[in-house]
């Protein structure tokens, strides 16, 4: 192999031009388009599905929050109603504020005002 040599001969084929197969290009473009459409559709479908699920979770969470808030609001109303009961007011007025019921002579009626 040490004594080996090689010949080089220039090939003059630069004038040759590969003919463009338009039909194949169209087919390729069509395939690409179909694949893109299918893939895009699939992605869109998956995305929408995920969004629906995610929104479902969000709605569920908000509904729970709403239920919780409504429950708290009702509890506060209940407490307010308890505190507004005449027996509670009377008890606190007498024990905490040292008030007592008035007698008639201590009362002026609206109709009696001059």
């Amino acid at each position, binding site marked *: 192999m040490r004594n080996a040599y090689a010949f080089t001969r220039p090939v003059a084929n630069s004038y040759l031009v590969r003919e463009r197969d338009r039909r194949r290009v169209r087919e390729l473009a069509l395939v690409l388009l179909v694949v893109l459409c299918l893939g895009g559709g699939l992605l869109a479908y998956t995305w929408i599905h995920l969004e629906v699920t995610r929104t*479902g979770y969000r*709605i*569920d969470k908000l509904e729970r929050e709403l239920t919780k808030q409504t429950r708290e609001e009702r509890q506060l*109303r209940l407490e307010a109603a308890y505190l507004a009961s005449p027996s509670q007011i009377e008890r606190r007025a007498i024990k905490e504020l040292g008030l007592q019921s008035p007698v008639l*002579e201590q009362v002026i009626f*609206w109709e*009696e005002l001059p």
Partner: protein
Amino acid sequence: MRRRLGIVAGFGIFWMLLIGARFYHLQVVRYDHYSNKAERQQQRVVTLDPPRGTIYDAQGRELAVSIQVDSVYAVPPEIEDPEAAAAALAGAIPGLDRAKLARQLAGDREFIWVARKLDPPVAEKVHALELKGFYFVPESKRYYPMGELAAQVLGYVGTDNHGLAGLELVYDREITGKPGKRTVLRDARQGTVAAPDLSSAEPEPGHDLYLTLDATVQHIVERELARAIQERHAKRGSAIFLDPVTGGVLAMASYPTFDPNDFGSYSPESWRNRAVADVYEPGSTFKIITAAAALEAGVVRENDMVDCGGGSITLFRNIRVRDHKSYGMLTFAQVISHSSNVGVIRVAQRIAAKPFYANIRAFGFGQQTGIDLPGESAGILHNVERWGLLEKSYISFGQGVSVTPLQLVAATAAVANGGALLRPHTVAAVSRGEARVPKYLTPPVVGRPISPATARELTRLMEGVVIDGTGKSAAVPGYRVAGKTGTAQIPVRGGYRGYLPSFVGFAPADRPALVGLVAIAEPQGSEYYGAQVAAPAFSAIARQVLLYRGIHPERPRPSVWMGQVTMLAGLPASPAAAPAVPRLALGEDDVLADGDDHAVAVETPEPESDHGAPKGGHPHASL
């Protein structure tokens, strides 16, 4: 090589055909079966409890409210240590039987209720335990924030959220509403995911009730009734107060009472609404009806003389009816004011039995009043065709006839309002969405047992009872009160046991704003007359309620009260009150509003002179 490829390809095609066939079987042949199964696994139908309607008093205060609370259930197969779980829960839930729960948790059941409708603080404690195998489900629970107030009127609901007594029972259909349903998706962790495309039906909330009953009036009536009963060591009692113009019930109290939040802890006796369910012989209070019949029939006038003889009258052979003392000759007005049995019998004997009976029926006795409360008794009034020789005489002074307290107060309201018998009612309006639909657009008149002229004459007779008769202790300073005392004996098998003193009346007599009855059963001690036991309670109630309702007394206009005012009654709370306040030399801050659009109290400056206000520096409040 080609043969081997053919064999492999053949296997491949066969395998693919098998897969395809299986797919076909699953997706086409068994489609319905598996899609239904998937739905069952992935979807869950949640029942949405409708909020039960709220019950409000006449001033818009909440008497019965529903809120969502948690119930706890267990799935025993998921629980690793039932003993420890039971111990932890017993520490958090008061009254929970630890041993029983541990036994149930160790059993082979798939589901057990641990506790239903926990109060929010208790539920929080259970949540904090984070026990495995225990789950929560929201349920609606009824609360009565004012506790025992009007318990027998409001009633109570059972665990299934349906009314079992009182208004909760009568108006159950209106209050309950309709449950809704929502389909949700379940994820792998058994969590729920809302799916808007799945079916859902929102719950329809129950309607709210707006009562004629006023919580403050009810409180006053309950307090005074309990006080009278406890002072006399009596066994039970009832009191009713109506608006004589509309027939609306302002207050209805029974003693003993109970807390509807925990009705199971009380005896069924205390659940009883005695004002509508109990019947009793009314005694002398029934003389109002006899007097009405006599005046209406024209057989007597208020100043006609009646011979009350020597204090007794023989009805038949040895059957005699006595008075407390020998009255001799009395005017008919005095017969009523002194409550003479003999005099009333003599007058009743002038009326024929049939018109007398017809008049008693026209006043609503022997039939239900039609009030919107359950368990109403019709009382006992025998048909006139079955009356014997003595029936009319006995009935004339309130024996041989049984009435409910409600019937008697409704009849007295007819006297008060000029002769119209009204149907008593407790509900003023029912909500329909945002609107409030009144139950009656005009007062529900069910009859006219007496003419206005008779009503006026009878009012004068009843006023005489309080001014100069047996009912002096029912008087209310500053107001004209009309009424009648009664002391009936309580019939038991073979005789009578104990007394039932009562007082029925209205005030002010000339412009009635309040008609009421107080009846107290079996007081102990030597004082058991209506005048001694029931009339003072009526007076105490009427005094406070008239004041609360802003019914001004008959007295000269106060002109020198500047700086002495302790209360403004019937005055709208600020800002409407503001213009009046400077005239009374008071600051706006001195007015304390009670939330009912009425100013209730102002601080009391020390009285400087005897202008009518009492000495002493105590501030005052009115409720």
